[in-house]
């Protein structure tokens, strides 16, 4: 049987790599087109747990799946101040304030998404 895939680098490999990188770039740039958000929606296990307006400083403690998170709002940005989950990706994500940007903590099942404010934007996320 003839081997259909050739085992040496060909032009199309470069095309595939470029296409994937381009997709990554586009997905990265998309949220930057949106302006600042007004509210941070905190969800635990997919259910909305709290809405923190970004114009006032606040702090919120969450306990879920045996992990503790401290979510804080400061100077119009929301971030995870402290977390005791294993990888602490949520903490490393840092401050977010753009509409559609988000922080995710997989072990604790918590997401924080910046929304525009108002009622029906909970499901609006670009990314």
């Amino acid at each position: 049987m003839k081997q259909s895939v050739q085992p040496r680098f060909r032009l199309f490999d470069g095309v595939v790599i470029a296409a994937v990188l381009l997709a990554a770039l586009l997905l990265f740039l998309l949220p930057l087109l949106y302006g600042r958000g007004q509210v941070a929606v905190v969800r635990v296990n997919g259910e909305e747990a709290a809405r923190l307006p970004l114009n006032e400083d606040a702090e919120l403690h969450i306990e879920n799946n045996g992990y503790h998170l401290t979510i804080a709002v400061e100077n119009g940005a929301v971030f995870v101040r402290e977390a005791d989950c294993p990888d602490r990706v949520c903490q490393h994500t840092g401050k977010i304030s753009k509409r559609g940007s988000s922080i995710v903590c997989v072990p604790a099942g918590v997401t924080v998404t910046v929304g525009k404010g108002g009622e029906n934007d909970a499901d609006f996320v670009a990314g």
Partner: protein
Amino acid sequence: MPTLSRADSRTRRVCRDAAFLCAALMFSYLETMFPLSLLIPLPGVKLGLANVLITAVFFWYSPLDAGIVSLLRVSVAALLFGSVTSFFFSAMGALCAYLVLWLCRLVFGRFCSYIGVSVLAAAAHQVGQITAAVILFFSAAPMAYLPVLLCVAVVTGGVTGFVLNLLAPRLADRMKRGRNA
């Protein structure tokens, strides 16, 4: 060469798949010794050594067997090192990657080498994992990680593809011959 009865060849197939599964699990274990996630602190960032084996089985042995080995690997790895959640993540990733392998075999394979195939499969794997996260969280928030994960996929897929390109002339024909024995 002595001819084999159907029962004989079936037994051989089971044994070969079991051997492939063991090798895949060994690669999964090896990966935990080089935690790439220390470099890039995101869940789901792995070198994907086991994917070298899955792809090799897919193209040089039998696509169906590759699917079986992949599914079993994900299940056993979840039992050994993971949880129900991690199983769901890996299973979605593996399923997407498997579908892309079929796409490559039927359409793209003619135009590219194993590097293109692996990069595409790795990207599909990440998309699958993000899809799992989106389903799990009922929120599109995890999609924010997709750009980073896609860049990682280019690197890890590139590495596995490079390895496959090196292996192809040495291993492909042997595995194909083994298929008919």
